[in-house]
């Protein structure tokens, strides 16, 4: 297949309501072959694993690239001059290498996002008035999350939807004025943004003993975890306080799990119970593996998540994350980032070394 054919098949596949397992496999193998042929560093990586399109029978045995590889390799099928948009991973210290995902078009990304967002966050409504706790796409052109939220805003946000964060910080006054307006109105309201922005917001509200009674049908979407940006919080505590401050039931507090290295997102059906079950649409599949051996862990046991996202057609569809998960029926539990674990002995481990060496 060439790029156009890949895009066409994918788009058709995504907008179908249901697909069979073997259809997923077929498309996954076609896309693997496309990436193997057009993405040379990935081809070398696969050859090192002694794997080629000829040796692979199922999406489960497509070599998964560790997300770290994006930092040192250019993993892209299209020509550099055809790149329309590049999303970059967020570094935690600023001076470290950032992984880059190149997109020759965002049409597949957008179809993927819109289709799944509709199904998981907006099944009952066409549009909703939104408040977004994240900078705009113009302010952060390399952030996939900024693009994701821009799609939510332009496709599902009703008139009056607004952004409340700029690169300068949160416009609290504007935000509270809007929330008070929503409180008085009976129309459902949606707050969307990075998890850590919500932490700052609830901290602020608790300090001034402020609560907002959002109308019935209102909902919250948080994403990204806390990543050292704010205090690390216990999830149960986070959703309890979030729900309490905005009077939004925990069942309507949805967490989205996405990554720069993917073009598709996972959602839960609210957070009454933490950790919640995450699942994705029919064009993405996940496995939980033992990172040392690459072998899938038995259902119910902890391991590292590997995702095969067909929509990520230009880079590499199958990636190995650094997130710990447990496979359960029709989804997985996300247990957070493998912290590089405290070394058990007195031998210095990489994480500690880097911390000290970088000052």
């Amino acid at each position, binding site marked *: 297949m060439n790029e156009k054919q890949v895009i066409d098949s994918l788009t058709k596949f995504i907008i179908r309501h249901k697909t069979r397992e073997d259809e997923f496999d077929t498309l996954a193998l076609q896309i693997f072959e496309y990436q193997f042929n057009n993405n040379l560093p990935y081809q070398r990586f696969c050859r090192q694993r002694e794997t080629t399109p000829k040796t692979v029978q199922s999406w489960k045995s497509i070599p998964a690239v560790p997300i770290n590889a994006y930092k040192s390799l250019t993993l892209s099928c299209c020509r550099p001059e055809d790149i329309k948009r590049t999303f970059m991973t967020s570094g935690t210290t600023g001076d470290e290498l950032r992984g880059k995902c190149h997109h020759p078009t965002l049409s597949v990304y957008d179809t993927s996002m819109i289709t799944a967002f509709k199904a998981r966050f907006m099944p009952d409504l066409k549009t909703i008035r939104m408040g977004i706790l994240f900078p705009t796409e113009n302010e952060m052109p390399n952030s996939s999350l900024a693009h994701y939220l821009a799609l939510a805003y332009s496709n599902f946000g009703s008139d009056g939807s607004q952004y409340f964060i700029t690169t300068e910080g949160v416009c609290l006054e504007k935000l509270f004025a809007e929330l008070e307006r929503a409180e008085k109105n009976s129309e459902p309201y949606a707050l969307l943004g990075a998890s850590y922005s919500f932490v700052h917001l609830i901290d602020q509200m608790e300090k001034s003993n402020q609560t907002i009674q959002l109308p019935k049908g209102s909902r919250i979407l948080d994403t990204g975890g806390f990543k050292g940006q704010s205090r690390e919080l216990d999830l149960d505590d986070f959703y309890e306080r979030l729900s309490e401050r905005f009077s939004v039931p925990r069942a309507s507090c949805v967490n989205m799990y996405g990554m720069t290295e993917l073009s598709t997102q996972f959602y839960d059906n609210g957070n009454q119970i933490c950790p919640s079950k995450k699942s994705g649409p029919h064009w993405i599949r996940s496995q939980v593996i033992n990172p040392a051996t690459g072998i899938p862990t038995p259902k119910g046991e902890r391991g590292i998540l590997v995702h095969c996202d067909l929509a990520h057609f230009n880079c590499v569809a199958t990636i190995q994350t650094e997130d710990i998960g447990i496979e359960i029926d029709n989804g997985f539990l996300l247990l957070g980032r493998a912290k590089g674990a405290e070394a058990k002995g*007195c031998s210095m481990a990489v994480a500690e070394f880097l911390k000290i060496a970088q000052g």
Partner: protein
Amino acid sequence: MTLNLGYFQGIESSTTEWKTLSFDRGRGAIEVAVPVLSETQLKSLCTRVKNMSQTYLKTIPVSDLVNIIDTTISSFLDRTNPYRQQAEDLLPRITGYDPEMIRLGLTSYLKTFRKVELNRFLSEDFSNPKILDEFQPLPKGGLGRAYGPDLLFHIWAGNVPGLPIWSLVSGLLVKAGNIGKVSSAEPLMASLFSKLLAEIDPKLGECIAIVWWEGGQNKWEEVLLKQADLVLAYGNNDTLRQIRNRTPITTRCLTYGHKISFGMISRSALDTGKSWTTAHQAAYDIVRYDQQGCYSPQIFFVEEGGAVSPEQFAQFLARELENFENKFPSRSLTIEEASIVASWRQSEELKAFSEEKRAFLADPNGRWSVSYSETAGEIYPSGLNRTIQVFAVGSLREVPSIVKPYKAFLQTVGIAASPEELIQLASQLGAIGVTRISALEHMTTPEAGWHHDGRFNLLDLVTVTEVERTAETAAEAFSDYVD
């Protein structure tokens, strides 16, 4: 029945809370219980241990202490002794290490605490160990006596079996009362040693207590930090910083942080006859306790120009690591440990196919891996658990300047080189902070009386009271026999 660990006297064990720790490292799941004393109980324990240290321990001659420790150790060396049997049975299940590796490791480690070795240990730090018993003439004039702390608080970390014994024995030799907090990763050996010691000398047993609490629970730690005369802490730098910050300014706090050790192989050890042995010995240092010790190698620098090239040596090393899988199979790793290994392997693998002059050799099941590079650029730790980096160097003399930036973290260097090279490298390495140089195959078995991280481990624990010559002379004037 769950085995109760920890050790203390004077508190009814039924009045304390017990917390169960579960281990399942693929060698038979096991649960043990560790005591969580209340703050009041901890305080009374401190008083009791201090009191016993003052009234009993300080009065026994150090040579008697040596005998009691020797008797304890010899029981522990006896494979029919129930405590020894318990250690051999439980340590592999708690830590996941190979049982045979544990058995051999225990014997070779405990041997370093026999009477003759303990005396050596003492004379390493004290030219006249009787200074621990009574006032002794000092070379500069006057008299001096060394006092160990009444309460020495040990904070242990890690899972290398038996390390707490080293610290406890040091405390006892200087007549310190000891309270040790065991790590959740290996709570066994300190408890067994103390119980056995108490059977041999019950009163000495009262000078020790072994306790536990959840890491990061400062409430308990604060009680001990306030009561202790001296704090001896092991762990990573973050933990150590916190402990040091919470220790009262008038209490000394000695810290042992995590370290990096490495090996150096000269072309003289790389002829066709000797290179296999060299690789075997290097692999043994990697395999023993899966690089969890501060003395375990994480990098080997291999000199070019020998009959066997550094790259071939890396292949030999890989083969030996594979062979060791039969003798001492690697442990099953937790997801967190496996993630560290996997992320190290992935990044080395990526380097190998994006940079020339690199090679990556690994067991497909992730049990060991060797990353070879023809140039030694920046150094960084390995992924541990049998992952090793091999760097080629034109001459071993280049190595000190490569590792120099990491002076604060360097510890052991295992060297395979000729006598001339050894002496020359030793002076270069000493100057950049390396504190221990050993033969290959011995990196993980320091000899008795070694100076951990280059410190005087007994001398650091004592304070000396000096009677100056003026006092002696002046006293003469008031004697009965004064003319």
